[in-house]
């Protein structure tokens, strides 16, 4: 029996226990190589924050994880199941992965409650009463119970994003992907959304968060990943990376945003 330990905080753990495992991921848009061989790992219950300059491929990486973008090559495993397998039931795997977009993408022709129920009923086959019950519980969680009959056009940005989080949670996903969830918000509305995300993290939700909120990354994140030019340049414990970046480009980026 080998019983050695490296003492490192992020040893790639056994694949079957990883929530997200990305191996040698390449993505081209035409001849433009946007992801250049990404190896990436999110453990169950971990909160991984991804930072990096604009155009570095953060969104593309996130969108590959639930196959909104099709990788050019490489493999992605979600809880041990290969989502990049041509025979995989992508729709089914996706319903385990919640996603929150920068621009909310609420369904404007439906009330808030309907936004939260439609996929529960159409994808999970839940009854109306069951789905409404779950939807109400999640609305309460994000503090918007009184908005269930409102249409998205009548919500503020912060409220919209919290509804979008509640909508994703109503599918009872095992993990959540966030793509700059607060970047489209007025500064005074950012806090409410971050609070919801913090609560979620403290409940043990596995999260992968592309963000510019360094405070959130330091406080909530288990791991911080710095991307530039389609590669991961540096990763580590957030406080350490932020305080003491090793790579020159990380230093340059952080000196601009902090």
């Amino acid at each position: 029996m080998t019983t050695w330990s490296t003492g490192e905080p992020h040893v790639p753990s056994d694949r079957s226990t990883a929530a997200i495992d990305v191996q040698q991921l390449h993505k081209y848009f035409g001849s433009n190589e946007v992801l250049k061989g990404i190896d990436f790992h999110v453990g169950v219950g971990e909160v991984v924050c991804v930072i990096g300059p604009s155009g570095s491929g953060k969104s593309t990486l996130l969108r590959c994880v639930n196959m909104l973008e099709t990788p050019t090559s490489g493999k992605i495993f979600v809880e041990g199941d290969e989502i990049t397998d041509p025979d995989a039931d992508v729709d089914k795997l996706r319903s385990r992965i919640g996603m929150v977009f920068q621009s909310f993408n609420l369904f404007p022709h439906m009330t808030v409650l309907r936004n939260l129920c439609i996929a529960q009923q159409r994808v999970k086959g839940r009854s109306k009463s069951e789905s409404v019950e779950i939807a109400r519980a999640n609305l309460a969680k994000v503090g918007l119970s009184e908005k269930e009959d409102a249409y998205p056009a009548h919500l503020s940005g912060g409220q919209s994003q919290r509804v979008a989080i509640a909508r994703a949670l109503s599918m009872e996903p095992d993990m959540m992907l966030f793509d700059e969830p607060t970047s489209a918000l007025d500064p005074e509305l950012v806090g409410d959304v971050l609070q919801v995300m913090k609560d979620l993290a403290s409940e043990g939700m596995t999260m992968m968060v592309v963000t510019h909120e360094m405070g959130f990354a330091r406080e909530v994140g288990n791991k911080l990943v710095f991307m530039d030019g389609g590669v991961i340049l540096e990763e580590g414990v957030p406080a350490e990376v932020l305080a003491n970046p090793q790579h020159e480009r990380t230093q340059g980026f952080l000196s601009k945003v902090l």
Partner: protein
Amino acid sequence: MALSKRKRAAYLRYAQYALIVLVVAVIAFAADWASLRDSFFKPDLVREQFPDILKTALKNTIIYTACGFVFGLLLGLVLALMRLSSIGPWRWLSTAIIELFRGLPALVVFLALGPGFSRAFPDYEIPGGGLGVATLALGLVGGAYMAETIRAGIQAVPKGQMEAARSLGMSHSRAMISIVIPQAFRIILPPLTNELILLTKDSSLIYILGLSLDEYDLTKWGREGMNSAANLTPIIVVGLCYLLITVPLSIVVRRMEAKSERAR
């Protein structure tokens, strides 16, 4: 000549009003009102039209148009989805159908499906008689137009809507049905209503089919009435009946456009 811009515009406007008043006055004096009324609006001939024109002709026009529109809408939706398909042959087929029926005059389509069809296939007939042919012809013509409108509407729905739906685990077709198409139809309701107005008028082409009396649409009714009375009054009444359908539709369209303008 130091007229300010605003003053000059005001004078120009008064001149236009004066011209309109002049033209109306000339027409009013020059016209022979008694003979005009006798040939266009004979009161007893007007009275004679009712209520049969409503019970038969107006009703038939509405039925032909409604059936053609519903068929056209379904056809247009299918053609639009084919146009947006990732499968080449679907796209080509739908482009061919759209170009064909958009390019042909509606009269030619009616001729081809009515007399043309029965001459080409004497042993068969299009089910539903006059209504069947009208539904098919109006549906093909309207569907070809509506396909392009629907396609534009689907493309006008932000891409994030489909992505959000897919990220919740919906299949592509489920997301289309529940999320994208309902939003697309909201966007294109005004142009679709315009198409309905155009089809209402195109339904008059059914006259070439040789209809029995209870199948008469408004135009056919008016022509027969005009011939038997040797007077234009029936046609005028028919024209008013068309306006009875189309003007409310126009008002609805204008309301919807104003509403979407405000929502922006």
